[in-house]
């Protein structure tokens, strides 16, 4: 029963199929016609080997169309398509063989022309196998999909590299005629000959193979690399002109025309093309900005060195930063560069200050609110604070006759001198108040754009240090003035007064007045009694400590000094002169038997030669004892005279006056001379002053340890408050005590200090 039903069903089916294929033709003629049509259609579609030399069979298109029509009516087209695709799969090895062949050639030559040839070849395969469009878009798209799938699966891994190379080389086609290899091997049928852009063939071949979509990111990366390479090549180390405009021009000239091909192929009008390019174009523009920005960030340290000549580069950077947010990167890289190149012991303090100054200007320009500057400057400031000679450098910079020649004068030509600015709390009643920038750190303080000097001074918490150092410097400079022209110093002081305030510079004022007063007093005394001595009279309390010396001027010098002091006392009865005999210079004429030697020498030298007027031969050690000076100092002075040919070394340490000149033989020793001329400054530096003070404090420490036994560091520190003017921190004291321990003055046990017995 069941078999019966089944047999019936099968028969029904068979009958249906037969009826469909035979289509009510008599007998099996319909079936025969169908099989003929199937044969023609499959034969027509069959993917053939391009390399097969046998000429292709000519089909009458009418016949072919008729067969397709027939099959379509029999609803057998899907089967035909399947059959075709299966045939393709079987023939795939032919393409694979070609691919491998071309790739091998490319790998051997490594030039893009083989890639181009491969692409054209593949395009030819594609065209060869493509079914005619009359068969409908379904078949065509099914074919394209199957072809591309097969194609991609047979690409070797090196293909993408080769393709990249090809794309990269395509940039050169934009403005130049294509090399022959980039053109299709045979005239293209579908395009009119000689189009405006010859590389269009290559691109259309790529497109028909679907490569443009598949390798889109690769193409973009090629373009990125192209842009990067160009930026690096043209912009690196060129800071003196604005590169951004020039780069944008380059993009329009070179990159945009190229982009038209891969990104705006289907465009029918210029407007449409522009629209299609907009998105990708802005991506490339962004990339260009980013590349330039990265480059400039890397170079920023050097750009800052060149400031203000590198202003155009900063302008570019500013524009790029507004497009690309690299602010954090800027801070990081500049801090890194500073740490590596600036903040190390090998860098001169002046250079650091100069660079800091330039950094300030440059970053203020990039970021007016100063957030970047604050973040970058912080380590510099901290480092500078630790350097011992920072204050002196800043003060020299303030007074400004450093090598840079950038003193107050130059700095202030374009900006008015302002008083030093102090930090101010936010004024919330200010209608122009603005909140802190979004990336400001918690400890950022809105500092209004201040001038460079205020910022430098603000490295330290108090400006007293500066005033102190300023005094020392001023003292040195005043004492160095010989022509009585103090105008420059006066001007400096006036300028500094505006900055530091009148009161802070009172002392400097007195020092300056001392100098002019000295001249006046001297004129008066000279009027009373002509004397060859012109002292500079300084008020001890207002001057930084001067080098002291124990020695007294001998012989005639002493007489002159005494005579002068007497006159002075008559003129100013309430004041007393205290001589600093070792400072100043003396012009001498030494009359010897055969000649007169004129020399301008320091007083010590003069005193030495005066001793020789009483005795011809002196031992250096005796001279030193006689004059209460150190032997080295005496020797130095004696050597000066040896160089001048006045003295001669008789024996070791024994010098004789040459009444009659000797042949100037090898006696003059330039090295010794130089050593003798190296004069130490007459004013104690702040550092030396501190050492002097520490000696006083040591007495106190000694005193308290003697009487109170052993003391802890904290106790010593608090007891030292009894010493006038003690202002050291406990850390400084600890350092000092440690030094004293090393020298064997004290011992320490369990944090308790005692005197070494």
């Amino acid at each position, binding site marked *: 029963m069941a078999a019966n039903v089944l047999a019936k069903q099968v028969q029904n089916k068979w009958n249906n199929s037969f009826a469909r294929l035979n289509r009510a033709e008599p007998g099996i003629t319909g079936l025969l016609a169908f099989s003929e049509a199937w044969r023609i259609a499959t034969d027509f579609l069959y993917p053939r080997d391009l390399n097969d030399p046998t000429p292709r069979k000519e089909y009458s298109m009418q016949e072919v169309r008729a067969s397709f029509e027939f099959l379509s009516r029999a609803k057998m087209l899907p089967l035909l398509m399947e059959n075709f695709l299966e045939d393709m799969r079987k023939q795939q090895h032919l393409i694979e063989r070609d691919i491998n062949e071309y790739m091998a050639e490319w790998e051997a030559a490594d030039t893009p022309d083989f890639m181009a040839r491969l692409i054209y070849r593949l395009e030819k395969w594609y065209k060869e196998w493509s079914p005619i469009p009359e068969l409908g878009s379904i078949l065509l798209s099914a074919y394209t999909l199957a072809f591309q799938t097969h194609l991609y699966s047979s690409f070797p891994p090196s293909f993408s590299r080769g393709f990249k190379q090809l794309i990269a080389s395509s940039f050169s086609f934009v403005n130049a005629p294509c090399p022959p290899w980039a053109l299709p091997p045979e005239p293209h049928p579908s395009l009119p000959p000689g189009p405006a852009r010859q590389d269009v063939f290559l691109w259309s071949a790529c497109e028909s193979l679907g490569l443009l979509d598949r390798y889109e990111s690769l193409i973009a990366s090629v373009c990125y690399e192209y842009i990067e390479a160009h930026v690096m090549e043209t912009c690196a180390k060129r800071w003196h002109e604005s590169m951004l405009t020039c780069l944008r021009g380059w993009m329009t000239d070179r990159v945009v025309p190229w982009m038209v091909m891969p990104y705006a192929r289907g465009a029918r009008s210029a407007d449409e093309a522009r629209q299609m390019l907009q998105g990708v174009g802005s991506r490339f523009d962004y990339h260009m900005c980013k590349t330039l920005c990265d480059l400039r960030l890397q170079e920023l340290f050097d750009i800052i060195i060149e400031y203000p000549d590198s202003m155009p580069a900063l302008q570019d950077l500013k524009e790029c930063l507004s497009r690309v947010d690299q602010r954090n990167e800027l801070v990081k890289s500049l801090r890194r560069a500073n740490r590596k190149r600036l903040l190390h012991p090998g860098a001169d303090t002046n250079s650091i200050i100069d660079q800091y100054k330039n950094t300030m200007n440059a970053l203020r320009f990039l970021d007016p609110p100063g957030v970047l500057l604050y973040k970058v400057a912080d380590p510099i400031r901290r480092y500078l604070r630790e350097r011992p000679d920072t204050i002196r450098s800043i003060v020299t910079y303030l007074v400004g006759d450093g090598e840079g020649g950038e003193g107050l004068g130059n700095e202030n030509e374009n900006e008015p001198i302002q008083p030093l600015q102090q930090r101010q709390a936010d004024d919330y009643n200010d209608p122009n108040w603005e909140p802190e920038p979004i990336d400001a750190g918690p400890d950022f303080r809105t500092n209004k754009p201040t001038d460079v000097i205020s910022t430098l001074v603000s490295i330290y918490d108090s400006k007293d240090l500066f005033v102190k150092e300023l005094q020392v410097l001023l003292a040195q400079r005043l004492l160095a003035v010989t022509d009585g022209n103090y105008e420059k110093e006066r001007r400096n002081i006036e300028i500094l007064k505006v900055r530091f305030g009148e009161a802070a510079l009172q002392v400097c004022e007195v020092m300056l007045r001392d100098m002019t007063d000295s001249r006046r007093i001297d004129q008066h005394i000279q009027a009373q009694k002509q004397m060859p001595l012109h002292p500079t009279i300084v008020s001890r309390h207002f001057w930084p400590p001067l080098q002291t010396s124990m020695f007294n001027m001998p012989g005639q010098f002493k007489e002159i000094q005494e005579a002068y002091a007497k006159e002075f006392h008559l003129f100013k009865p309430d004041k007393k002169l205290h001589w600093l005999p070792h400072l100043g210079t003396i012009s001498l004429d030494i009359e010897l038997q055969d000649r007169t030697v004129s020399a301008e020498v320091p007083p010590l030298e003069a005193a030495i030669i005066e001793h020789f007027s009483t005795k011809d031969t002196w031992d250096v050690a005796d001279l030193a004892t006689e004059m209460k000076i150190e032997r080295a100092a005496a020797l130095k002075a004696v050597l000066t005279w040896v160089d001048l040919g006045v003295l001669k070394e008789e024996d070791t340490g024994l010098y004789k006056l040459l009444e009659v000149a000797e042949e100037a033989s090898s006696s003059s020793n330039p090295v010794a001379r130089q050593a003798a001329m190296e004069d130490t400054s007459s004013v104690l530096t702040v550092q030396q002053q501190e050492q002097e003070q520490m000696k*006083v404090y040591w*007495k*106190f420490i*000694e*005193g*308290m340890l*003697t*009487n*109170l*036994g*052993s*003391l*802890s560091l904290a*106790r010593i520190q*608090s*007891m030292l*408050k*009894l*010493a*006038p003017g003690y202002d050291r921190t406990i850390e400084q004291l600890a350092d000092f005590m440690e030094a004293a321990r090393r020298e064997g003055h004290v011992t320490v046990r369990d944090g*308790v200090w*005692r005197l070494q017995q």
Partner: protein
Amino acid sequence: MEQITTSLAPRAATKPSVAGTGGDPAGSVTKRLSSELMTLMMSSSPGISAFPRSDANLFDWVGTIEGPAGTVYAGLKFKIAISFPSNYPMAPPAMKFESPCYHPNVDINGGGICLDILQDKWSAVYSVQTILLSLQSLLGEPNNASPLNPDAAAIWDTPEEFKVQLLKYYRPISDEASD
């Protein structure tokens, strides 16, 4: 010692008004004391030294005297307590030996000192430094006419015997921390 200081006090108290130091006596005394401290620290007189006991109270000092060379006291060190009156320098500071000192003019028990400039011969021009120097020389040259320690005065002329007694009482300054 006690009777000396107490007898001194009333007389000394009258002096400031006599000398006319009005105003702020404590302030000027502090000033004087710190300047004396400075002078003392900067002058390097061998064998004498003094320093305030603490930075809080400038009126209470500790001094150290080394026995002068060539006397029986040579090589010995003595601690002295110095306490300044509030009207210093119109009145002399009260001084006594903290370490036992066997000496004709020093009370061996209380440490009181019999020295004329600490009593009626006091003058405002004296300073801690001059007092300490006087004390140092007193060690070598006692005033045996008015002894506080008659035993010591009695054997002063026999140095050997004196030295034995001296060393019997002497205690070297121990270095135990005073803080």
